[in-house]
C-alpha cells in the first residue's frame, strides 16, 4: 500500500503550524514547491489504524483564489492540479474564535470533492470563555467530520488522527454547501466549465463547477498564474466581460453568497463571543502599537536584534573559527607536507569553516525572527513600519532583513522569507547586500588606518574636534544605507515594478512562542543553509584555492630551497641565535609565497584585470586581493599579506601591512595607495557583490542562477562606476 498524502490547510495564524508539529513530531522534510520560492514542508504521520501517511503543509491562506504563482500553490496542492500530487485527504484547520472568516476557506475546499476533516482549533479558548460550539451541528452543515482540537495544548490530536483514518478508509467525498448562483453569474460558470481540463475536474461535474468558479475569481488581464490553458483564460475573460456588461458583479455575488451561508451557520452553531476575548492582546496593543510608546519599543527590540547579531554572536563565531583552525592544524600535523596537505588545510577545512562561520548569526537571527513571528510581534512591526518602508517601495516586513544586513547579508537574505509577495522578497534580497556588513569593517579599518591621519596627527581632526578616521567610518555606513534605499527605490520602479500592493494585514492575538517551534525554525534554517548554500560556498572556496595555488611547477626567480639551506647552515656556523634564523626563514618563505601567488592563475587574472581596474586607481596586486575577497571580503587582507610577501597571518591591525601599503609605488614612482585610492577602494568594497556566500544564498532562496548573476552584475557594475567617479573626479579636483 502506498503512503497516503494528507494535506493540511488553514488561514494564516490559525494554529496550523503548531498542529502540524503536534501531529508529526520532530522530523520534517523541508524543500520547495517545484520552480518557486514557496517552502514545502512534509512529515510522516502515523495513523491509529497502522496506516503511514505523509502530512503536507499547505501555505497559510485566507482563500484558494489566486493571482500570483505563490498564491496558486494552495489550490494546486489541494486539488492536485498539473504537476501536483492529489492529496488523499485534507485537514482544514479552522480557528474557532474567528469561525466565519476561517470557514470561507473550508467552503472552497469542500467544493473540490475531497475527503475532508475540519479541525476546530482554539477550543480551549472557547471553553475558557464559556462559548458553546455545537460541533455536531457544524459537522452536519458542512457534511464532513469536525474535530475539536487545541493545537497549543495538544488536545484532540488523537481524535483528529482517528478522523483522518476514518475518512481515508471510507469512500465518500465532500460536497459544496453553497447553492449554485443563477442569473448571469451562473451562466458564466456554466460557460467556463467545458474549458476546465479533464485532468483538473477528474470527470466530476461538481468539481468542474468549483474550478470554473475559481478560475472566474482568479484569472484576469494581469494575473501571474501558471499552466492555465489559453482557452480557459480566454473564456474566463470573455465571460467576465459579459457579466460586467450585464451590470452584475461577479466577485461580489460569489463571495457574498458564501458569507451569507457562513453567517447563517455561525449563528446556529455558535454562541456569542464575549467582547473581552482579546483583552490581553488589546491591552498590549494599546502600548505596543501606540504612536508614543510603540515606535521607541520597536527601536529597542530592533536594537536588541542588532546587538545579538553583532555582539552576542561574536564569541560563538570566535569559537567556530578557533575550532576550525585547531582542526586544520591537527590535520596538517598528521598529513605529509605537500599539495595534499595544502589542499586539506587551505582548501577543504577553510571551505567548511567558511560555511559554518555563518551559523552563529543565522541561529541568532532566526531565534529572534521565530520569537517575533510566533508571539505576533512581527505583524505589529509591519504595522508600525509600513509607511516608512512603503515610501522606499518596500513593505513593513522588509525592515528586519534590511537591519540584519548591517551584520551579515546571509541571514538577512534568509530572513526575507517572512514576506509573502515575491516582488517584495526579490527586491529586498537585491538591496540587502549593499548594507555595510561586518565583513567590510576590517577592510575599512585597514584602509582608513593606513592612509588617513590619526586624530593625533596633522589633519587628523575635522573642525578641530571630530576624528577624521571615525568620520570616514560613519560616512561609509551612511553611504551604503543611502545607496541601498536608492537602489530599492530604483529597482522597485523598474525591474520589480508591479502595482504597489495595498496593505491587508492581520494582527493576530499575542501568544507565548513555543520553544519547540522556535528551536525547530532555527534548526531547519541552519540545516538548509549548510546543505544547500554550503555546498556552493565550499566549491567556490576550493576553486579559489586552486586559482591562487596553481600552477605549482614554476620557474622561480630564486632557488628558495637552496637559500633556506644556506641560511640555516651559515647561521648555525656563525652562531646566529635560533630566533633570528627562524625570522629570516619566514621572510624568505613570505617572498616565495608572494612570487608563487603572482605567477598563479589568480595572480595572472589580477594582471589581466589591471586595465579594467586601473581607471579606479587600483594596480594588479589590488586586483589579486579583490579576487581573494570573493571568498569573503575580509580575506582581502590576508591575500594582500601574501601579495606583499608577509604571509597570510596578517590582520587589519598589523602595522607592517599598513606601512607596506603606504610604501607601495607604481613603476613610475608614484604612490599606489593615496587617500583618494583608499576612498575609491572603500567605495568599491561598499558596493561590489564580491561575497560568494551571499550569491550562494540568493541562488538557494530564488532557486535560480539568474538572480545571483543579476545581483553580481548590477552591484559590481555600480561599484565600478562609483569608484571611477570617486577616483577620476578626485583627480580632476586636484587630489592625486
Amino acid at each position, binding site marked *: 500500500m502506498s503512503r497516503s498524502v494528507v494535506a493540511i490547510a488553514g488561514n494564516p495564524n490559525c494554529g496550523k503550524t503548531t498542529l502540524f508539529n503536534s501531529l508529526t513530531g520532530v522530523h520534517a522534510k523541508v524543500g520547495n514547491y517545484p520552480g518557486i520560492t514557496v517552502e514545502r514542508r512534509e512529515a510522516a504521520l502515523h495513523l491509529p489504524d497502522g496506516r503511514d501517511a505523509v502530512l503536507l503543509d499547505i501555505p497559510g491562506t*485566507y482563500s484558494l483564489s489566486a493571482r500570483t504563482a505563490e498564491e496558486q500553490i494552495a489550490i494546486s496542492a489541494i486539488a492536485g492540479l498539473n504537476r501536483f500530487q492529489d492529496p488523499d485527504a485534507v485537514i482544514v484547520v479552522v480557528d474557532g474564535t474567528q469561525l466565519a472568516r476561517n470557514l*470561507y476557506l473550508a467552503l472552497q475546499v469542500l467544493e473540490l470533492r475531497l475527503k475532508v476533516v475540519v479541525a476546530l482549533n482554539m477550543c480551549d479558548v472557547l471553553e475558557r470563555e464559556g462559548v458553546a460550539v455545537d460541533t455536531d451541528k457544524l459537522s452536519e452543515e458542512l457534511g464532513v467530520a469536525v474535530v475539536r482540537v487545541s493545537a497549543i495544548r495538544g488536545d484532540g490530536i488523537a481524535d483528529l488522527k482517528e478522523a483522518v483514518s476514518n475518512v481515508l478508509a471510507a469512500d465518500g467525498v465532500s460536497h459544496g454547501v453553497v447553492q449554485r448562483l443563477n442569473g448571469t453569474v451562473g451562466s458564466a460558470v456554466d460557460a467556463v466549465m467545458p474549458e476546465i481540463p479533464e485532468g483538473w475536474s477528474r470527470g466530476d461535474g461538481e468539481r468542474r463547477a468549483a474550478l470554473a468558479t475559481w478560475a472566474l475569481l482568479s484569472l484576469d488581464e494581469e494575473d501571474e498564474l501558471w499552466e492555465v490553458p489559453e482557452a480557459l483564460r480566454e473564456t474566463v475573460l470573455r465571460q467576465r466581460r459579459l457579466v460586467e456588461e450585464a451590470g452584475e458583479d461577479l466577485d461580489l455575488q460569489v463571495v457574498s453568497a458564501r458569507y451569507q451561508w457562513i453567517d447563517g451557520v455561525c449563528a446556529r452553531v455558535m454562541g456569542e463571543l464575549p467582547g473581552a476575548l482579546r483583552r490581553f492582546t488589546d491591552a498590549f*496593543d494599546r502600548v505596543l502599537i501606540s*504612536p508614543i510608546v510603540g515606535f521607541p519599543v520597536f527601536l529597542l527590540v530592533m536594537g536588541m536584534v542588532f546587538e545579538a547579531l553583532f555582539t552576542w554572536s561574536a564569541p560563538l563565531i570566535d569559537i567556530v573559527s578557533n575550532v576550525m583552525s585547531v582542526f586544520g592544524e591537527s590535520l596538517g600535523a598528521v598529513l605529509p607536507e605537500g599539495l595534499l596537505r595544502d589542499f586539506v588545510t587551505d582548501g577543504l577545512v577553510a571551505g567548511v569553516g567558511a560555511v559554518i562561520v555563518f551559523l552563529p548569526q543565522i541561529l541568532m537571527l532566526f531565534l529572534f525572527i521565530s520569537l517575533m513571528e510566533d508571539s505576533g510581534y512581527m505583524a505589529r512591526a509591519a504595522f508600525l513600519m509600513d*509607511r516608512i518602508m512603503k515610501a522606499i517601495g518596500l513593505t513593513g516586513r522588509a525592515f528586519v532583513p534590511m537591519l540584519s544586513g548591517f551584520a551579515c547579508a546571509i541571514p538577512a537574505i534568509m530572513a526575507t522569507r517572512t514576506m509573502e509577495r515575491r516582488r517584495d522578497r526579490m527586491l529586498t534580497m537585491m538591496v540587502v547586500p549593499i548594507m555595510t556588513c561586518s565583513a567590510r569593517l576590517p577592510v575599512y579599518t585597514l584602509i582608513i588606518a593606513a592612509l588617513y591621519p590619526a586624530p593625533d596627527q596633522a589633519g587628523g581632526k575635522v573642525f578641530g574636534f571630530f576624528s577624521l578616521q571615525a568620520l570616514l567610518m560613519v560616512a561609509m555606513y551612511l553611504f551604503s544605507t543611502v545607496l541601498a534605499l536608492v537602489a530599492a527605490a530604483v529597482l522597485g520602479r523598474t525591474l520589480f515594478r508591479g502595482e504597489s500592493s495595498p496593505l*491587508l494585514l492581520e*494582527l493576530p492575538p499575542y501568544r507565548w512562542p513555543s520553544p519547540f517551534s522556535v528551536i525547530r525554525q532555527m534548526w531547519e534554517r541552519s540545516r538548509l543553509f549548510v546543505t544547500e548554500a554550503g555546498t556552493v560556498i565550499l566549491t567556490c572556496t576550493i576553486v579559489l584555492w586552486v586559482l591562487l595555488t596553481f600552477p605549482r611547477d614554476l620557474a622561480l626567480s630564486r632557488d628558495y630551497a637552496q637559500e633556506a639551506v644556506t641560511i640555516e647552515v651559515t647561521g648555525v656556523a656563525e652562531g646566529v641565535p635560533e630566533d633570528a634564523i627562524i625570522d629570516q626563514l619566514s621572510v624568505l618563505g613570505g617572498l616565495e609565497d608572494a612570487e608563487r601567488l603572482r605567477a598563479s592563475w589568480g595572480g595572472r587574472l589580477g594582471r589581466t584585470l589591471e586595465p579594467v581596474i586601473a581607471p579606479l586607481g587600483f594596480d594588479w596586486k589590488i586586483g589579486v586581493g579583490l579576487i581573494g575577497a570573493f571568498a569573503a571580503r575580509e580575506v582581502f587582507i590576508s591575500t594582500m599579506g601574501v601579495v606583499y610577501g608577509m604571509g597570510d597571518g596578517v590582520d587589519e591591525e598589523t602595522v607592517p601591512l599598513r606601512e607596506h601599503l603606504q610604501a607601495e609605488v607604481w613603476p613610475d614612482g608614484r604612490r599606489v595607495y593615496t587617500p583618494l585610492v583608499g576612498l575609491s577602494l572603500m567605495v568599491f568594497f561598499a558596493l561590489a557583490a564580491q561575497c560568494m556566500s551571499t550569491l550562494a544564498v540568493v541562488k538557494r532562496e530564488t532557486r535560480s542562477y539568474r538572480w545571483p548573476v543579476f545581483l553580481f552584475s548590477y552591484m559590481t557594475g555600480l561599484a565600478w562606476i562609483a569608484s571611477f567617479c570617486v577616483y577620476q573626479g578626485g583627480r580632476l579636483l586636484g587630489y592625486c
Partner: protein
Amino acid sequence: MSHLLLSDLSPGASGVLNRVGGSRAYRRRLLELGFVPGTHLKLIRRLDVGNVLEVELRESRVSLRISEATVLELVTEETS
C-alpha cells in the same frame, strides 16, 4: 443615517458596510476577508502617523492603510 468612509471613522465608532470599491485584486481580497456589504465594521484603532488603521469584522481583525480604506463606504448607525 449618513454615508461615510471607513477612513473617516474614529476609534470605537462603527458602521455597516455599504459599498466596496478599489482595484479588482484589492477588492476581491477585501471581499474574501469578509468585507461584503451588510457587514458590521468597528474601528479598533487608527495610527495616523503610520497611515494605518485596524478594523474589526465578524470577530476578526484586519489592518488597512488609512489612505486605502477610502474604498470602503459605510452607513453609520448614529446613536447621538
